[in-house]
């Protein structure tokens, strides 16, 4: 793998770390503090009971402490300070990581079995192509808008389900094509000749060859989800209001609130999506070179 891809992977893993530790990075307790003669690391997490009795105000002047730049997840209001907005950005990374992973998990869970079955002719093939046409003709925007109109209470979960289902159909189409391609090869014939059941042949011999393109496509899908979430939350159709989101931060910048935070959100979206693209390209190159196909470079 080339350097840019390695860098991009590094950035993405940091993003996930930020998302996992968002509560620590944007919390009211310090990251590191010297108090009562000993060093406390992340006291809000490691010793919440003891920390609860300490008055942070008294601490500041007497002992060295490393504070997180911002407070716990605040609400996005017009009077929000810069620190609060940065904290929203940090928590936004958690929403985007959960959303993306959720969509990917659902899409793969739906798409791979469906595509494999369609490719082997178990599920009526026409059904899949109709479903593909259906989702192709229905922009995610419209589905999400319809959902927001009819089922406001579904919120985040509904958003993930809709995107997951729509992307799942695309993954299914891809898997179907790959399964058809692999099914023609000699080793699949051999496996069938040796008496492997269709299910076993698909699971043991066909699917391992399908994973490569699916992973590449999933990475592109992740980039698409990040962009779509940004666009939809910007329009106020994406994640519900109480979930911090980069897209909404951008949207508020349009009304003159928190331009700095919006820049941070923009940077976050830009870097995340670009890194996903770079990683996907590298994966694609790597896998197609291994398959002996034409390389992108």
């Amino acid at each position, binding site marked *: 793998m080339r350097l840019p891809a390695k860098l991009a992977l590094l950035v993405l893993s940091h993003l996930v770390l930020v998302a996992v530790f968002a509560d620590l990075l944007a919390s009211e307790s310090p990251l590191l503090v010297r108090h009562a003669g000993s060093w406390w690391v992340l006291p809000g997490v490691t010793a919440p009971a003891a920390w609860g009795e300490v008055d942070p105000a008294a601490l500041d002047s007497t002992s060295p402490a490393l504070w997180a730049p911002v407070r716990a997840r605040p609400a996005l209001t017009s009077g929000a300070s810069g620190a609060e907005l940065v904290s929203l950005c940090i928590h936004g990374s958690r929403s985007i990581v959960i959303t993306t992973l959720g969509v990917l998990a659902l899409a793969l869970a739906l798409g791979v079995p469906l595509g494999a079955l369609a490719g082997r002719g178990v599920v009526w093939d026409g059904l899949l192509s*109709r479903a593909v*046409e*259906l989702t*192709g*003709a*229905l*922009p*995610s*925007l*419209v*589905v999400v*808008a*319809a*959902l*927001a*109109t*009819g*089922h406001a209470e579904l919120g985040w979960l509904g958003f993930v389900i809709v995107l997951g289902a729509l992307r799942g159909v695309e993954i299914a189409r891809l898997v179907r094509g790959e399964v058809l391609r692999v099914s023609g090869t000699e080793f699949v014939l051999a496996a069938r000749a040796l008496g492997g059941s269709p299910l076993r042949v698909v699971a043991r011999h066909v699917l391992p060859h399908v994973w490569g393109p699916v992973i590449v496509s999933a990475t592109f899908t992740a*980039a*698409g989800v990040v*962009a*779509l979430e*940004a*666009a*939809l939350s*910007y*329009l*106020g*159709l994406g994640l519900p209001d109480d979930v911090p989101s980069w*897209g909404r931060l*951008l*949207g508020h*910048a*349009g009304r003159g609130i928190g331009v700095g935070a*919006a820049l941070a959100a*923009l940077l976050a*979206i*830009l*870097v*995340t*999506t*670009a890194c996903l*693209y*770079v990683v996907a390209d590298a994966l694609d190159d790597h896998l197609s070179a291994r398959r002996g196909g*034409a390389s*992108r*470079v």
Partner: protein
Amino acid sequence: MRHALRRILWIVPTLFVISLAVFWLLTPRPTPHGTELEADHPFFGDHSPPRFVNTRPTNVRDRALTLMQRIASADPGEELARRELTRLGGAALPHVLPALDSLDPRGRARVALALAPLGSRMNLGTPEELRSPESAVLFWTRFWQDRAIEFRPAVVKRVVARLSEKSTAGRREDVRQLDTYALPELLDGMSPVETPEDVKRVRRLAAAAARIVERPWRVPKDASVGEARGVVRLWQAWWLEHRSDYVTHDGAERVLSMVSDTQYGRWAASAALNRLGISASGETVLDLFLARAPVTLWLLVSALVGGWLVGITLGLVGAARAQRVPDFASSAVAVVLCALPVSALSTAAAPVALPGLGHALAALVMVLGSAGLVSRHQRTATRVALDQEFTRTARAFGAGPWRLARWSFRASSVAALSLLGAQLPGLVTAAFVVEHALGLNGLGATTLRAIASRDIAWLMALSMALGTALALLQISSDALLAAMDPRVRLGLLRKRGAAE
């Protein structure tokens, strides 16, 4: 060609499924609203019917008889039942009055008293007659003996036809005494509205209907054809909603009403009747759509055309100078363009947008938004084409990289073409974002308003329109692909041969 035609035909069922799916998403499970009592009984109040299949379509006979039983048995919900019976009005009489005899005397008296408000609306009897239990029973029994013959479709037809010809006090009175029983004919007589004569007719009929169901929709004295048509549209929308309260369904119509007397059925009927339905702002959806579509269309077209020009140029530069500075630069630009959220671009552009420049600026943003993807595809496709024997031969004979890129263009542009259909859904989203950011009044702005006001008619129309557009574009891009690339054409032929 045959292939394309078959796919165009497939659009119709696809659209139908889309409409079902979107409608399912749009409408929450019908929740009966109002008091608790209304909630547990489907015959009361403004109950919204099921979404797709109504296993128990209601009609006036069932409603009237249930209400009668409730009133007769002095049920706790009696007060409500009285009001409801008054609302059903004359249409309920042919079912209630013959059944009076089957009640015990006390119940009979209660029902007869409950009919008093209806009697005064129909201008029958004297208040004293209607208000005392004994005389009320006697009055309604006698009324039915005398007048049963008038509550027949043929009679109603004649009475309404006479009113629509000329409005005299006697004719108005005839219709008034039929009450809601005359509604189907009144509504039927309202269309068409084309000449000034029609306006006069509609004016008489609307006045009669307005008196019966107490709605304000009358045609003013010197109304134009357009105004009259607007009033008729209101009446028809109302009738669609309430028809099942006033008519009986028999035989086949009863089966049909299992489908038509649903939320979806009502939407479909309203869409067919009123140019895709009436949006929340009162205009018909089609008019609104045609007024707003040009802005969005301009954005989409400029994104496609401009995006292709910029994207293909970038891609060609990258491919021709592969693994050198121009390639890295163009690849980096493409990735950044892909990753850059349109919302940020257009937000940044918003302060610069001078009045009049908004459209141009929006188009520019759209071009930038779509160029990245095209450029990436173009670069890959050109690289693949440059790898093939014919280009290698040309290179061996000394052709430069630019010439090679140009020669391979036909082979590589196929890739960008296949992108066309896949790209559009994203562009539609981008167009909505750009409209929102730059304050353009296109489909996006209207859609956002429709979501806020739960305007189902608009959202349905939008999804159907986008569905059609995307499907057509997909088909035409496939057809273009087949025209440009003989291999695709052969593939299609082979597939069809295998299927036959």
